[in-house]
């Protein structure tokens, strides 16, 4: 799935990928790819600026750590980031529920 298709959902997905704990940029890409069975294979060049944008918004914070012998910048959720993630979840549940209901009704009417 292309990054443009995720427009509007990218921030929520990035926040969700960091929910379990701090990760460096490429690990975020792997979590999204593996967690979506390969559907969300985001471009490297999309994820890094987006993580920095979330940091600027106070939703994640970054620090340096050594991962597999390499010094990496890792990101983790801030309390504001956790709240934003919960808000995104609620919005998504409402949105997807409404779309599913409409799509199902359309399919039932056609049969």
């Amino acid at each position: 799935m292309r990054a443009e298709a995720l427009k509007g959902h990218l921030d929520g997905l990035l926040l969700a990928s960091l929910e379990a704990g701090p990760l460096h940029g490429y690990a975020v890409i792997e979590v999204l790819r593996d967690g979506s069975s390969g559907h969300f294979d985001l471009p490297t060049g999309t994820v890094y600026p987006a993580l920095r944008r979330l940091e600027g918004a106070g939703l994640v914070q970054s620090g340096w750590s050594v991962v597999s012998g390499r010094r990496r910048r890792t990101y983790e959720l801030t309390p504001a980031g956790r709240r934003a993630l919960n808000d995104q979840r609620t919005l998504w549940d409402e949105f997807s529920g409404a779309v599913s209901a409409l799509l199902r009704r359309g399919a039932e009417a056609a049969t």
Partner: protein
Amino acid sequence: MSRPLSTRHPDPVSSYLVAIDAEIPRWLRSRRAALSELADGLDDAITDYRTQGLSPQEAATRAVSDSGPPSIIADAFTDVLSAGHARRTALALLVTGPLIGVVWLNALVPGSPPTMLLAQILPLGPVILASVVTSVLTLLVTGPARLRPAWAPRRPQRLAAFACACSVVGDLLVLGTTMITALTMPGNMAGYPLIGAVVLTLTRLAITQRVARRDLTRAPSNP
């Protein structure tokens, strides 16, 4: 692009990073750190492709191709880094403003309240107010997501540049008034406090006029 970054990576990656670097304004000082981080990510992608059996050259080419067009990546980084730059500029103005104000107060009308200085240089009040308001707005639109207004611009550097322009006008007003007073009533000017105030103001002026000219006169590449 620094030499270590360009020589560390296989050629497609190096060219890719140079192309992105060329499209990010030079004055964004976090540029190199951001690109180093991206280079790390590309290294990881190359390692992934290598474990899948691709040659180093093929792996590097695939990693670069997956990452996205340099102009789009540069644009995304410019947005993020510009916001940080605008925020630091606004903070610097809000911190240096009162400091320079106190120094001038001490130099021109020692022992008097700030209103005395504002009364002596009438246009100074509105100019300071405009600079402070614009600086606070810049902090607001670049701050925590929950406080950002819906109208927040994607690149707020013009807001910070306007605050700088107001600061330039304020500094010139004070310097001009001082020069006129020094020429017409030379005995009324205090020595060292005045020199300190002039040096501080000229230093800030050198920085703020550059920011104001750079960001107000040049059209944004992608507003």
